[in-house]
């Protein structure tokens, strides 16, 4: 099996607030992220696809194709957006790194038809990320 990874960046704002919690609990649990006006990050997304290289082209999938999928599904949807209000797939969820990574997995998984989506890793900053993969998958 070969794993290939493509990286994209997007910038977006968000805030953490749960209607299931009181004002005080929201503040205690989410801290600065609970600012009602929101704040933003430069997100970095790494998408890893697994597969065997095609015997003719030598590719698992055409990177141009992957680039187009990421542009259409992720950049257009999330770049320079307010994640809480403008990304339908995140409605009703706190846009934590974990939840955004899961949404990204769900968006990309059916679109990648050459090879198979192996992993998405979403960095909110250089030091914080969340990663999604299938249960039991290799850590590659």
């Amino acid at each position, binding site marked *: 099996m070969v794993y290939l990874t493509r990286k994209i960046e997007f910038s977006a704002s968000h805030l953490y607030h749960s209607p299931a919690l009181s004002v005080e609990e929201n503040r205690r649990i989410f801290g600065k992220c609970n600012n009602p006006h929101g704040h933003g990050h430069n997100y970095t997304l790494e998408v890893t696809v697994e597969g065997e290289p095609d015997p003719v082209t030598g590719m698992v999938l055409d990177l141009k194709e992957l680039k187009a999928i990421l542009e259409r599904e992720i950049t257009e949807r999330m770049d320079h957006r307010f994640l809480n209000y403008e990304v339908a797939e995140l409605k009703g969820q706190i846009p934590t790194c*974990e939840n955004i990574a899961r949404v990204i997995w769900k968006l990309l998984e059916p679109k990648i038809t050459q090879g198979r989506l192996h992993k998405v890793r979403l960095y909110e900053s250089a*030091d914080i990320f969340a990663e999604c*993969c299938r249960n039991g998958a290799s850590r590659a």
Partner: protein
Amino acid sequence: MSDALKVVFGRRYRFAASHRLHTEELSEAENSRVFGKCNNRFGHGHNYVVEIHVSGPVDPVTGMIVNLTELDRFVEREVIEPFDHKSLNEDVEAFRTKVPTTENLCKEIYGRLKDFPLAKLELVRIEETSNNAFEYAG
């Protein structure tokens, strides 16, 4: 979907420490041959980057596997405070008998963090420099 998916949260921490690679099991000449510059008797230091991966169910209310402040507090207490601006050989009990290679450091830090009560420790990755990285998953 969620059940078939594994979600991992990752966080990077930093500390600076000195060490010397040296073992009493080997002669002076062998230590020098095996460990090279790292055997310098006065030690040397690194800016270590420690990446911690934890997994678990994503809380439906908070959207989190674990609250970052809880993880930070635990790692700060178990790893950063005892290791930052310390001599690994002199100040960390485990390295009085073991060579403080980054392989052994990965295992030591994994051991200190594996009982984190709020999420499952998946992996410890240490970058000793920007060119050398080590991982341990238990």
